[in-house]
């Protein structure tokens, strides 16, 4: 009884006729005719050996895409460097500031201990034992150097007022002490 009632209700619903565009059939057939004509024309004008249908054409198309993608990725990869190069001239460098020197390692080979000592000894003698004139030839005391700068321990050098009267023996002693702070056997600062 219940199922019959349910089926009757479904039948009543189904008896409702969906509203439709009365000319829909003609419209579809007309559009289909036009589309079929377009397809026939397209097929008839398409040469048999159409290059788009060949494997070689597909391969060339794929290769061109790969090359394009590669160029794009390469450009993306190198663009930061290019930007950096372009930006360098635009940066403002203060005139009173020395340009920053590239950092480099300083080994004992670059600054042999013995020649510097000999050089300072010669300068000390030629300048009447003036310590500061001699010490200025030590390459690591270049005031322009920001990288690789050697900071001497406190009290490693005599007071400036006393340095003018220092003897060669005292200078040699300080120099040895100074050299002990230099990089040894290929060490870098």
């Amino acid at each position, binding site marked *: 009884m219940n199922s019959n009632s349910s089926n009757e209700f479904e039948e009543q*619903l189904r008896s409702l006729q969906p509203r439709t565009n009365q000319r829909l059939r003609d419209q579809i057939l007309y559009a289909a005719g036009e589309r079929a004509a377009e397809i026939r024309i397209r097929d008839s004008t398409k040469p048999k050996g159409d290059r788009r249908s060949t494997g070689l054409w597909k391969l060339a198309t794929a290769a061109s895409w790969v090359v394009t993608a590669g160029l794009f990725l390469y450009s993306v990869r190198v663009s930061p460097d290019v930007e950096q190069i372009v930006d360098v001239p635009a940066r403002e460098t203060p005139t009173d500031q020395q340009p920053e020197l590239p950092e480099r390692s300083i080994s004992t080979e670059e600054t042999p201990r013995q020649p510097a000592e000999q050089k300072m000894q010669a300068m000390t003698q030629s300048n009447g034992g003036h310590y500061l004139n001699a010490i200025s030839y030590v390459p690591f005391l270049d005031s322009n150097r920001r990288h690789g700068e050697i900071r001497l321990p406190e009290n490693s050098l005599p007071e400036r007022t006393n340095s003018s009267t220092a003897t060669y023996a005292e200078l040699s002693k300080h120099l040895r002490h100074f050299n002990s702070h230099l990089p040894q056997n290929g060490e870098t600062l």
Partner: protein
Amino acid sequence: MDSQTLGELIDEYAQPLELYARQWSDDAADLVQTAFLKLLEEPTFPSNVKPWLYRVVRNLAFSSLRSTVRRRNREMRHFEQSENWFEHGVDSELDGEKATTVLLELDSRTREVIVAHLWGTLTFEEIAELTHSSSSTVHRRYQNGIQQLRKKLGLSCPTTE
């Protein structure tokens, strides 16, 4: 496909397809026409053309609804305007306009199952494949929808008789 075959397919499926598409689109006839043109361009004729047509119409309708908001607004407009989905003057005990109103009050997934099964004569299995759900879920939605329609149309529910 010749024009005669196409005409027979249109006679058989266009009307329920238009009702099916009307759930989501104001341009239901255009969607149905596009679906038949796609059928015409198919290199091989589908083995089961009826579910194929419903799937194409459904995809076209959903594509026309660009966003959920737009879809919701459109459904609300459908609900407010309540354009009659059924022919006037047809010998039926039910009022077409009222049936349209209560159909629009149903949940959209329930309504889709009702329309596809009752007027589209799709099986529950075909609807399940169309809506990406299980046959049992589709059947449950259908039974639930029928009960809601009976209640809203003022008919007593068979389970309570």
